């Protein structure tokens, strides 16, 4: 990759993933936002160190790192807290681009991003090889770029297949 570029004109990019597999996949796409003002949002505080170490190792400006509560569709209260956390982050950051691999917090991030005029991208998890994830199906209509990692799931009108994290 190139040396640390002049970032005064660089877009503000918000990248969001729940802890575990979604996060590991998001991290494999990191060079896509090299040189941007990037803010990582996840549900596991322990990921901060690897994010900072990776940026330093690859000569990238130190990214921002924010933690929100995790929640799924059966944990309404946690889901609400997750939504609130993301709302505050999106309002403060005013991202120009929002990217997520899932799950529920990623869906919120895309919806909130749209409200503040951001362009949004969803990369459905590679774990969903035979049907899209629930969050992926719900996020699709709110994504300017809607991707699946399985060619067999690509369809006219989306999602598209443009490669995978593996």
């Amino acid at each position, binding site marked *: 990759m190139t040396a640390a570029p002049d970032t005064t004109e660089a877009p503000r990019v918000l990248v969001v993933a729940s802890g575990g597999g979604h996060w590991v996949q998001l991290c494999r796409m990191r060079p*896509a936002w090299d040189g941007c003002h990037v803010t990582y949002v996840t549900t596991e505080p322990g990921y901060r160190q690897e994010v900072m170490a990776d940026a330093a190792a690859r000569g990238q400006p130190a990214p921002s790192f924010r933690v929100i509560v995790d929640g799924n569709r059966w944990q309404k209260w946690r889901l609400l807290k997750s939504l609130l956390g993301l709302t505050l982050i999106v309002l403060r950051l005013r991202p120009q681009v929002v990217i997520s691999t899932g799950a529920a917090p990623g869906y919120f991030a895309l919806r909130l991003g749209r409200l503040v005029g951001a362009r949004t991208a969803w990369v459905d998890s590679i774990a*969903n090889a035979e049907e899209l994830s629930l969050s992926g199906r719900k996020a699709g209509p709110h994504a300017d770029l809607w991707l699946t990692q399985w060619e067999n799931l690509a369809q006219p009108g989306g999602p598209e297949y443009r490669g995978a994290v*593996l």
Partner: protein
Amino acid sequence: MIFLTIGTQEPFDRLVRTVDAWCASSGRGGDLFGQITERATYKPNHFAWVPSVTPEDFQTRCKQADFIVSHAGMGSIITALTYGKPIVILPRSAKLKEHRNDHQQATAKRLGKRPGLLVAQSEAELPGLLDKLTAEKGATGGEALTPFADPSLIAALRTFIHAKPR
């Protein structure tokens, strides 16, 4: 060292119990370390275990392991492949209430042909695979994965990030 990990969310007693029984019969328990979640009801008697590990500890244990035993979660699979470590996966079953749906079965079916990735279709197949990997001492790992996603996926996202705003 053998590292057993079942993800951060749901317990997976069927896997933990099978590995415990294998440790008892093979005498290899002293060489195995397991992460079995907070809500695990089956507590192993024949190997050392913890409910959860930090992300940093998770990386270290994967890196140091001869091989990894896991559910078919993408976090475990990608991490194992990244370090070139063989991984045995037992997919969770929705029917047994081990997950919300059967996407892990699909993951196992579609990714199971990769070198270094061994699938146990049921717990009955697990002891044989554990014996095989123990005998080989982790020698059957595939080549370590490149650290990042397909260049085509990264390029698609990069182009999207830098496209003209709407």
